[in-house]
């Protein structure tokens, strides 16, 4: 009988904790747009710049920040990457529990070699992620990221129209935030610290 009570107790506790966790996820206040519970952006399957296949499960225990861009984007993309690097500095030792991922929207030009030079140039921990054309397109769709390859000019040079902003997962692998480009380093750092506590 005692055993039965213990089992019931454990079940009740687990249910209560699960409820708390869900409530935390639902009621947390963020400066960024809270997209918790959306039926999209649940995962990705792309290869990092070291050749390792990556999914969100690889970063269990870390807040994961995902940015979609490409290296031939000279202004907004590096500006966002620099801002995220600054967020890492601001986070101090908490940065060890944060992983920034840059997903290229231009896999044709952004070879693993280029991504390997580009992403860590902003912060040594940053990883560049890449898929083939089909994987890139489906990942962009999964994250509601606009992506349009423009026609090449006479030199074969082209640009890629794309959405700005970044996404953030909490350490449990749940997509939680959409952070637009207007948020300051301080605001982003504060939101990420809050995510790390969930």
């Amino acid at each position, binding site marked *: 009988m005692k055993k039965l009570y213990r089992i019931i107790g454990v079940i009740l506790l687990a249910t209560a904790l699960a409820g708390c966790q869900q409530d935390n996820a639902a009621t947390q206040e963020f400066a960024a*747009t*809270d*997209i*918790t*519970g*959306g*039926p999209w952006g649940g995962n990705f399957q792309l290869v990092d710049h070291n050749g390792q296949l990556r999914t969100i499960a690889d970063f269990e225990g870390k807040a994961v920040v995902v940015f979609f861009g490409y*290296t*031939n*984007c*000279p*202004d*907004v*993309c*590096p*500006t966002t*990457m*620099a*801002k995220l*690097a*600054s967020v890492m500095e601001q986070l101090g030792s908490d940065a060890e529990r944060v992983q920034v991922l840059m997903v290229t929207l231009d896999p044709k030009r952004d070879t693993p070699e*280029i991504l390997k*030079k*580009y992403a860590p*140039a*902003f*912060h040594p921990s940053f990883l560049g992620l890449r898929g083939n054309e089909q994987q890139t397109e489906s990942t962009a769709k999964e994250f*509601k*990221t*606009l992506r*349009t390859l*423009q026609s090449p*000019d006479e030199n074969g*040079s*082209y*640009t*890629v*129209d*794309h*959405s*700005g*902003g970044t996404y953030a997962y909490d350490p449990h692998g749940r997509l939680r935030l*959409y952070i*637009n*480009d207007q948020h300051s*380093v301080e605001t982003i750092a504060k939101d990420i610290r809050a995510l790390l506590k969930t």
Partner: protein
Amino acid sequence: MKRIAFSMLMLYSASSVYAASVHGQHGSAASAQNQDKTAQSANTSQDKASNSKTLTVSGCWIRSLPKPVPSAAYFVIKNSGTNDAELTSLAMSEFDEVSLHQTTNHGGQSKMVMAHNTLIPVAGELKFKPGSYHAMLEKPNQALTIGSQVKAEFAFDSGEIVTATCDVKPPNTVSE
């Protein structure tokens, strides 16, 4: 459910699109001045006008990115003359292609296009800064050393030339 729908709406409205530009050309659309009055803190270069006595370029810096990735240059042009001036081109020997671009933002949507109006009014200034006007530096022909300086030649419609030096800064430089 309501929150998810709201988030999706926010996401849509906040999404921005960066579009390609035609390189090295200028149009004559809306004035750029209003978008470029905010402060920028990257004024570390000590540049003065050379050939022109009334146009000055200051705070020029380049975000150093690994070759062959294109990078961008940012600066402030001031006009103390009696005539409006228009920047027509920029040249740096370290890059085979340099073009003038701008990022615009309308209702949360950003777009990168060719620089439409690079007018520097009398007693005014034009700021090239991240997320706004910028010089796109393509086809680097050498690797730049962070902390070094690069010479840049700014050409104006009046035929005046201003030579300035640009500081080469790390990739993670944040300009407020």
